[in-house]
């Protein structure tokens, strides 16, 4: 059976954090927005705003239309995490084993504290009192078997109260919830899954849980199977995470000691990437990580962060940063006392993977190579796209065609890498695509390293200085003897050797789109004795430098 878990949840935490920082917002309706795929979308709203119909998921403009006078602020996870550090310290007074799930939500196993305080309900009340003492009035506690059920129990609780699901009754408690709640622990993939389940007529967790395991795994994959276990009340935490080997602990000594968040966060970022790279090579993913720090005075600070699914290097770095904000930024309390946990600079930073699982869904094996390298490259390429626009960054996809330019399709980074034309003119059964025979009439390998688009104009001349033309039947008027082109060193020169013409009659079935073109491979003697291999196209008597074999 899943472990008894308590979940402390502060609804609309971004709003509470914002108001704690800026007390002038306490009397006005507030909405916190985040930039998503649909633009600025509300992620949390104050009770006054909710009363006016401002709900999470609404676009900013619509939220402002529904509630005039609404104060809108962008989400700042760092501020939220720093503010939540106070709640974490309050909980720490009666249990050390809590795990931060996100700013505004933490969980802890109830076994020890409940026995000490005399039952889950008494413990939950005690927990609520502790956070109320530091000024958080709207906190809720849910206690159930497993973290997922506990999270929903907290959601079912009245403001400032606790909701305890008796042991063994979690699956019954979960059954009536709509499948959309699966999105919450793990947005993205799970949102698609929830959407699909609704369309299949499975509207509640109970209906989804009733499906047989094997069928769910076969149809929805490992992510679906995980959601199915959650829906049934078998929490993931019971799937015996492997104990991480001690050599996975990443440590960085900070010299000079870091007193500013920026300095420490910079070291932490590299540390997070190293840890993820090491885990990646072992085929492991990390779901829970301990962030430890030591100060100059020998104080040891520890916090445990958890992430549904698996932590990515960026997600881990963000959490470490939030935590450092909480430790290194002094909070001035209501009574004017300075509440600063780290009384001096940090000298040591340590990341301990606390719960590792075999990496199933996240490996970027599709790209081949090192998944950490793919992650890094993907990030910088996306950044360059941000600077220059989506189509500026491309990758080459070989496709069918006759000329070097036709045989490559440039696909913007992030779009599906699919050829527009078949590689083979006639697909051979069982043929390896890389060794597919080229289209008939294709220019033979090797391929030129420079292909010009548009091709610069050139003059292909015979020995008498006349322009070389190619007849409709593909016969040249004379052998080429000289190529002139401004793009070549020395503006071209004598032709030492040549091959062709390859006559291409493209789209002969369409009178308007039809183009007749002849290709020549020529070896031009440059003035300094260099031989330059070129591909020249002749269209309607006009030559152009199509490509250079650089």
């Amino acid at each position: 059976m899943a472990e008894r878990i308590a979940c402390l949840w502060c609804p609309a935490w971004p709003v509470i954090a914002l108001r704690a920082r800026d007390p002038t917002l306490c009397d006005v309706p507030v909405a916190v927005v985040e930039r998503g795929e649909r633009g600025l979308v509300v992620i949390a709203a104050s009770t006054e705003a909710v009363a006016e119909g401002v709900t999470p998921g609404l676009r900013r403009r619509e939220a402002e239309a529904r509630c005039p006078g609404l104060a809108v602020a962008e989400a700042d996870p760092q501020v939220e995490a720093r503010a939540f550090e106070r709640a974490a310290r309050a909980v720490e007074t009666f249990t050390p084993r809590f795990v931060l799930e996100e700013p505004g939500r933490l969980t802890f196993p109830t076994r020890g504290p409940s026995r000490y305080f005399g039952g889950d309900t008494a413990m939950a009340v005690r927990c609520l009192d502790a956070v109320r003492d530091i000024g958080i009035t709207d906190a809720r506690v849910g206690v159930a078997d497993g973290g997922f059920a506990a999270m929903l129990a907290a959601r079912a609780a009245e403001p400032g109260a606790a909701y305890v699901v008796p042991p063994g009754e979690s699956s019954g408690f979960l059954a009536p919830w709509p499948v959309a709640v699966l999105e919450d622990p793990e947005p993205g993939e799970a949102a698609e899954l929830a959407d699909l389940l609704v369309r299949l007529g499975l509207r509640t967790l109970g209906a989804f849980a009733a499906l047989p395991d094997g069928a769910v795994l076969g149809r929805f994959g490992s992510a679906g199977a995980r959601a199915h276990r959650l829906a049934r009340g078998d929490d993931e935490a019971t799937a015996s995470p492997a104990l991480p080997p001690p050599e996975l602990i990443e440590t960085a000594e900070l010299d000079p000691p870091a007193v500013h968040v920026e300095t420490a966060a910079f070291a932490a970022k590299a540390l997070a990437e190293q840890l993820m790279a090491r885990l990646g090579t072992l085929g492991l993913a990390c779901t829970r990580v301990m962030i430890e720090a030591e100060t100059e005075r020998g104080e040891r600070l520890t916090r445990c962060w958890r992430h549904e699914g698996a932590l990515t290097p960026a997600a881990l770095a963000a959490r470490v940063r939030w935590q450092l904000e909480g430790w290194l930024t002094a909070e001035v309390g209501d009574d004017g006392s300075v509440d600063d946990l780290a009384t001096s600079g940090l000298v040591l930073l340590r990341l301990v993977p606390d719960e590792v699982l075999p990496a199933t869904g996240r490996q970027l094996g599709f790209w081949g190579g090192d998944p950490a390298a793919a992650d890094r490259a993907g990030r910088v390429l996306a950044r360059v796209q941000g600077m220059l626009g989506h189509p500026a960054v491309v990758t080459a996809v070989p496709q069918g065609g006759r000329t070097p330019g036709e045989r490559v399709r440039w696909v913007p980074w992030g779009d599906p890498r699919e050829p527009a034309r078949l590689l083979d003119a006639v697909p051979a059964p069982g043929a390896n695509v890389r060794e597919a025979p080229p289209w008939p009439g294709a220019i033979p390998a090797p391929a030129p390293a420079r292909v010009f688009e548009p091709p610069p104009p050139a003059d292909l001349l015979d020995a008498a200085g006349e322009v070389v033309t190619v007849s409709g039947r593909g016969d040249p008027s004379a052998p080429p003897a000289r190529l002139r082109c401004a793009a070549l060193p020395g503006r071209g020169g004598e032709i030492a050797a040549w091959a062709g013409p390859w006559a291409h009659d493209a789209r002969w079935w369409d009178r308007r789109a039809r183009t007749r073109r002849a290709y020549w491979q020529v070896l031009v003697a440059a003035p300094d004795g260099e031989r330059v291999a070129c591909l020249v196209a002749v269209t309607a008597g006009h030559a152009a430098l199509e490509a250079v074999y650089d």
Partner: protein
Amino acid sequence: MVLAGERVLAVPGPLGALLPGGAVQRGTVVAVDGDPGAGATSVALQLAAAATAAGEWAAAIELDASLGGLAAGEAGVELDRFAVVRRVPPARWAAVVAALLDGVSVVLAEVPAYARVGDARRLLARARERGAVLVAMGPWPAEAALRLRAGGSVWRGLDAGAGALAERDQRVHVDGRGAAARGIALVEAG
């Protein structure tokens, strides 16, 4: 801590045989130069191929859009790990190169004629910091650990009106610390 073997990128094939230790140092600039048609692009593509063969990523930055994708594939570059940034505006060139050095092992960058020494030095420092190889194609105005100059290659397979371009003896002049003076590497075969 990095092992000595991880600080270099092994370059396979005949080009590697010309390089000191058969490899290029990570965190350095390799300047590749040559007249159009002399083979500088092919040499640069082999350095990109060395990165993708090691499971890493390579990228190219172009001022126009003329790099042959097919030639890259023939040079041994894994095309799904090779991104090309095309038609980079002059004002953004240094910023784009710097961004790519952050996350890609080998960056082939066409150097514009207007590149400033200051920009080049900054990129050199960025490459050193990130352990990436910057392959500067064109007139690199700053220091480089290795300078490769393509020139004087011999093509075979093409006659007067017969045959087709088949292979070439690519001549590459290597200049730099611990480098052999010059050599011939056969880099293309039909």
